């Protein structure tokens, strides 16, 4: 991989600098620990597996927003649309492909769901290229509302407000059947999440990922250095849609159901909240956020549903007012401060 | 005559950029001051700093003995800072008359007197701000600042981009305001020749600091010196041989 510049040896400083850059994509202890614990949950919390699958799926949805918003700075209130498209596409594939393998295979379903979402994402990505944050918010919201409306009106296909019944995916890769305890669903969701996470991790640490952060920081300058800004935005928006679609497909497959609830406004808003909770632009923000969000919902929602909604709103208000950057933002701020103190000492 | 406006060691800029450093000056009651310098030397920034629109990095500003350093722009305006912005910035969805009445405070300058000063505005009093010619906009900007009944008038390039006839008309009005009405004023201008006769003192800025300060007539009389101070003649260092 370093075959280009063999003619002259880089200076020691350049080698050191390169090590610093490459060091940013090395796996840290905390990162490894996160995934080990995630895997260990299978044994630690055997009664909570379906909740954990749900968290993994929401985490994937939040991750998709992180790619689009946290890295490329595209403000969106409509990611739920792609989640819904993915869910219905995969759900329909499982329903009508039942028995006729390979169409009902969940893994194929993931690609169908993700693919459809990516297609819609690609088409609508051109709508978010121009305009301010506010325009983007409203356009993405508008697209989500249109999808919502389509789902509700095409009753013959989607089942309308009753939801899509009869989603019966076959065994994963023809081997592992979905079981009552959600064991297969958990492992399946976690593996998909992990694979897509690895991919996202590679993307954001790459020159392409860096260019997205640059676009977020200063579109004017990125154009001045000859960067195809629109192409990059279309690409990441499409990738983000694919991720959301896969999350939707996972949801439809593991719950064997799809409903207009999947495309509703609150789905987009919730996922955005999870990301903001955890911290946008950190990759782990969405994952952490979905864990906290879903746990809080479980605990508070058990008291009364209103209670949960109230505290969700209050947390959001407090977050915006006091804790910019979510939990991970807070942590990295603390780390920087400690480091600076250490340097000063 | 007492000091009306005092700047003490002001440093200011926009965002991270620092444009001005170590500016100290004072304006006496009834005095007019020309603020000269090529573009980019910080003249407008200095005006905006007095108005309260820049990021101050040090120093203090006092108006009539009262410290206004910490006041917001609107409070400074009410305390007596009358501002004629460089871009004129007429409120475009207000009529000519509304542009004046919206900011009016009680005092000797009334709508009638302002219209008396600028008869063209009287004719166009019902027109919207965005329907005016450049010269009319400039007159309105001056009239609007007078409506505040300020203690000091800050004029930021009032003659820029105007046709010669309009320039003469405006200069006549400024002469009446400054020389006859004894309004204290700071006038930023690139057209030094036109503005020096109106003022008693002149300050030349260079790189955000005061490069020269002296009586206006003296500067007006010495064209070569003026040109060299403004940096438009000969190579710096090789000049001022006179």
């Amino acid at each position, binding site marked *: 991989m370093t075959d280009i510049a063999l003619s002259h040896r880089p200076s020691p400083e350049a080698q050191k600098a390169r090590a610093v850059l490459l060091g940013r994509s090395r796996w840290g202890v905390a990162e490894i620990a996160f995934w080990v614990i995630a895997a260990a949950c299978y044994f630690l919390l055997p009664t909570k597996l379906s909740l954990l699958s749900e968290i993994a799926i929401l985490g994937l949805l939040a991750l998709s927003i992180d790619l689009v918003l946290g890295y490329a700075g595209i*403000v969106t*209130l409509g990611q739920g649309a792609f989640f819904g498209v993915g869910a219905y596409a995969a759900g329909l594939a499982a329903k009508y492909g039942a028995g006729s393998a390979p169409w009902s295979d969940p893994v194929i379903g993931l690609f169908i769901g993700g693919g459809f979402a990516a297609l819609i994402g690609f088409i609508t990505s051109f*709508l978010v290229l*121009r*305009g*301010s*944050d*506010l*325009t983007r*918010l*409203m*356009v993405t*919201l*508008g*697209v989500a*509302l*249109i999808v919502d*409306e*389509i789902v509700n009106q095409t009753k013959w296909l989607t089942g309308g407000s009753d939801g899509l019944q009869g989603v019966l995916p076959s065994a994963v890769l023809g081997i592992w059947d979905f079981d009552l305890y959600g064991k297969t669903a958990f492992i399946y969701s976690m593996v998909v999440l992990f694979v897509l996470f690895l991919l996202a991790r590679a993307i954001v640490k790459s020159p392409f990922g860096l260019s997205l952060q640059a676009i977020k920081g200063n579109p004017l300058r990125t154009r001045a250095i000859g960067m195809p800004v629109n192409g990059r935005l279309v690409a990441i928006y499409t990738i983000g849609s694919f991720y959301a679609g896969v999350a939707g497909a996972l949801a439809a497959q593991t719950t064997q159901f799809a409903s207009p609830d999947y495309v509703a*406004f*609150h789905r987009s808003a919730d996922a955005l909240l999870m990301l*903001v909770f955890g911290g946008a632009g950190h990759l782990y923000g969405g994952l952490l956020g979905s864990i906290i969000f879903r746990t809080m919902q479980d605990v508070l929602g058990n008291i*009364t549903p*209103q*209670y*949960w*909604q*109230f505290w*969700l*709103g*209050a*947390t*959001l*208000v407090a*977050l*915006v*007012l006091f804790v910019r950057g979510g939990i991970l933002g807070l942590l990295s701020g603390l780390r920087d401060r400690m480091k600076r103190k250490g340097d000063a000492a | 005559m007492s000091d009306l406006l005092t700047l003490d060691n002001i440093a200011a800029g926009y965002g991270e950029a620092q444009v001005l450093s170590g500016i100290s000056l004072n304006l006496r009651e009834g005095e007019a001051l020309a603020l000269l310098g090529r573009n980019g030397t910080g003249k407008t920034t200095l005006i905006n700093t007095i108005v*309260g*629109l820049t990021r101050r990095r040090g120093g203090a500003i006092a108006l009539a003995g009262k410290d206004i350093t910490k006041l*917001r*722009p*609107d409070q400074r*305006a*009410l305390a007596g800072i009358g*501002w004629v912005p460089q871009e004129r*910035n007429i*409120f*475009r*969805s*207000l009529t000519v008359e*509304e*542009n004046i*009445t*919206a*900011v009016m*405070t009680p005092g000797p300058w009334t709508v009638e007197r302002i219209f008396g000063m600028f008869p063209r505005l009287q004719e166009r009093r019902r027109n919207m*701000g*965005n329907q005016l010619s450049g010269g009319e906009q400039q007159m309105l900007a001056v009239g*609007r600042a007078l409506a*505040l009944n300020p203690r000091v008038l800050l004029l930021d390039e009032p003659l820029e981009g105007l046709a010669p006839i309009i320039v003469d008309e405006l200069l006549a009005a400024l002469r009446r305001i400054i020389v006859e009405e004894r309004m204290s004023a700071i006038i930023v201008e690139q057209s030094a020749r036109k503005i020096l006769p109106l003022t008693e003192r002149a300050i030349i800025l260079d790189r955000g600091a005061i490069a020269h300060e002296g009586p206006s007539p003296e500067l007006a009389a010495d064209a070569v010196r003026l040109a060299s101070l403004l940096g438009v003649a000969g190579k710096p260092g090789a000049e001022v041989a006179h």
Partner: protein
Amino acid sequence: MLTILFDGVAYGMLLFILAVGLCVTLGLMNFINLAHGAFAMAGGYLTITLMQQAGVPFLLCLPAAFIFAAALGLLLERTLYRHLYDKTHLDQVLFSIGLVFMSMAMIDYAYGANQQIVNLPDYLTGRLNFLGASIGVYRLFVIVICSLLVIGLQLILTQTRFGSRLRAAVDDGRVARGMGIDVTRIFAVTFAVGSGLAGLGGALGTGIISFDPTFPLKYMIYFLIVISVGGTTTITGPFLAAILLGVADVAGKYYVPAVGGFIIYTIMVLVLILRPQGLFARGPAR
């Protein structure tokens, strides 16, 4: 046909009163307040409570709703909103969605999730015949009240000193400050009046639209459409947009129920796209 037009106009006028505060504050401070509908909901539920629990006459509820929502608006503006003016639109959206959730939860807790119905006084029910069309008395009432409000707003905006100072602040806030106009205070007052109008709209709306805790979310979309189609620089723009939206919505639901919502959202997206600098940019500069 005429009946639908009439209903649509009444609905549109109501939408305008509900949304106008949002249009003005967005234009003035570039602040996006998705929780605007919460103030309308406050007005609506106050009316419902006053009428059903305390037996207050409907006509008295209207000013009460205005005052209540305005006071609530002023309080929140002074304590919370003002910290958000220099933050990003995303922050403003998250913050105001948070407020929406809180308001929905509180209403749900206090009143339950059911739709609330108000028994209008007798003199406001029934129908009139006009040119062969059957016209609801209450809708006529709404049109009259809203027309008066629109005229009143227009007069305040164009004829008073407050109005000219407000327009000056919208035109160029920075220079307005430099001219001694306390933009912050003007904004607080405008915010309060806008919230109050939303509250009044909510009170008036109790006879036309159903109230349940999802109101702020449901109507948020309508407000955004009014803004995106009508712009924020005048109040005639949003007014026309609201009337159009009202008529289109009522007619759409009547004639083509299947695609009504679809069309409205599509129009909103199209309008947003066809104005490339973003809808809120004010045309080509000078």
